[in-house]
């Protein structure tokens, strides 16, 4: 029976000791320990949250970068295309102009050649006519001055005539 009868003295000391222990530990141990643990836990939570935020931001940044890159690439593409078009057009234009110019020049040259040719022909004709007249005058004069020779010529001609007619 002794064993299961609470002794008053021990109840008294246990109560006092336990209450003292409770208040001392609450003030000097549980508060700092639990406070530190909670502080660290909230720190970890915050760190995780901010890491997540940073990750999202990074994602956004990467997406942005990609978008900008894409835009830049498209712009470059259009720029290149435009340049190519301009180049082609310029070449085309230059070609046409050159063709025109050349044609014009050729035409002018042809016209000039034609007129020159005509002038030259006219001059040549005149010249030839003069020369022919001069030659003919000289020949006639020369022929007529030599009687023997005229005779001989007539003879030869007559002879040849018969030969050829025979």
């Amino acid at each position, binding site marked *: 029976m002794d064993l299961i009868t609470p*002794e*008053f003295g*021990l109840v008294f000391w*246990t*109560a006092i000791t*336990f209450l003292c222990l*409770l208040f001392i*530990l609450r003030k*000097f141990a549980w508060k700092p320990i639990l406070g530190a643990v909670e502080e660290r836990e909230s720190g970890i939570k915050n760190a995780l949250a901010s890491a997540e935020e940073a990750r999202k931001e990074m994602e956004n940044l990467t997406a942005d970068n990609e978008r900008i890159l894409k835009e830049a690439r498209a712009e470059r593409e259009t720029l290149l295309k435009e340049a190519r078009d301009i180049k082609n057009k310029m070449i085309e234009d230059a070609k046409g102009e050159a063709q025109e110019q050349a044609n014009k020049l050729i035409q002018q040259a042809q016209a000039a050649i034609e007129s020159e040719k005509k002038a030259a022909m006219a001059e040549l004709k005149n010249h030839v006519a003069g020369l022919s007249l001069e030659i003919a005058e000289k020949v006639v004069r020369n022929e007529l001055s030599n009687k023997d020779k005229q005779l001989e010529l007539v003879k030869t001609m007559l002879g040849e005539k018969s030969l050829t007619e025979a």
Partner: protein
Amino acid sequence: MTLNTFKSILFSALFLAISFVGHATEDSDNKDSKEFNAKEMILHHVKDAHGFHLWDWNGHAVSLSLPIILWTDNGLTTFSSSKFHHDDSGKTIVEKNGGKFVKLHEKIYQLDEGASSVNFDEEHHPTNAHRPLNFSITRNVFMMWVSVIVLLLIFFTAARHYKKSEDNVPTGIAGFVEPLVIFVRDEIGKPMIGEHKYKRYMPYLLTIFFFIWINNIFGLIPILNGANLSGNIAFTCTLALFTFIITTFSGNKNYWKHIFWMPGVPVPMKIFLMPIEIIGMFVKPISLMIRLFANITAGHVIILALMSLIFVFKSVAIAPVSIAFSLFITVIEIIVTAIQAYIFTILSALYFGMATEEEHH
């Protein structure tokens, strides 16, 4: 640095004092002449005592005598337990402060006016003596204070570590203590009481958990003569009383409604349930008290009984068996120390949770 030096000096002084007192109170021990009584020996070890019997040396008991503090009709009376010269049968009479005192089965009796020696009835109860209020520093009280010093050292060191460190990373003793504290918080406080209200009860839960655990452990240390504090019903009764008081005072409207007028059942059932619930209010702390007391005491009784086998059979041959079995039980008891502390704490938390539960329908 100075604090550590101070601590070591304090401890050396304490142990020196113990050894001096021990030698000073050496006395003849006439146990050899008596027949070995296992039941008596076991009960003597399991119950509280007024002295700290450490070991026998050359037929003398080396023990630490503890102060006896009594509240008698003549006021406060104090003397050392060594005055009884290890007598536990009521033969040695100590006269102090106008009263005559004897120690009988580790209880202090004051002889009635005019009596010069104790008279017994057939059941060996004293007939001419009464028990004054006894506030003595018994073996259990002494060990309780030692456990308090150890607890304070452990947790002050841990708390100081957090104060000093800037990043709150636990190392050293804080690394050992922190998982236990977090265990009590996350496995006992939060699930039993609830996320919003557990904080108020954490100091109590933590204190009771570590207080019970360390006293369970101290009870297993053989050289301390098995100061069986947590296996003493007075100790468990006090702690259960605290749980009861806290539960009762933190009970909300919903809690009392569930006790006196159970919602959701017909009126005859409400009337029928009321006395059951009222009894249950008291049964809960009583079960806490008995569970801890019985578990720890049973462990001690088993270990001591196994050891007694050697003396009962008066043979050394039985010693290996006794030792093997008691070692096995001791290992189980080491686990039980933690389990019982855990159960007491989790049930206390459960009762607090029930008392503060909000209505939800």
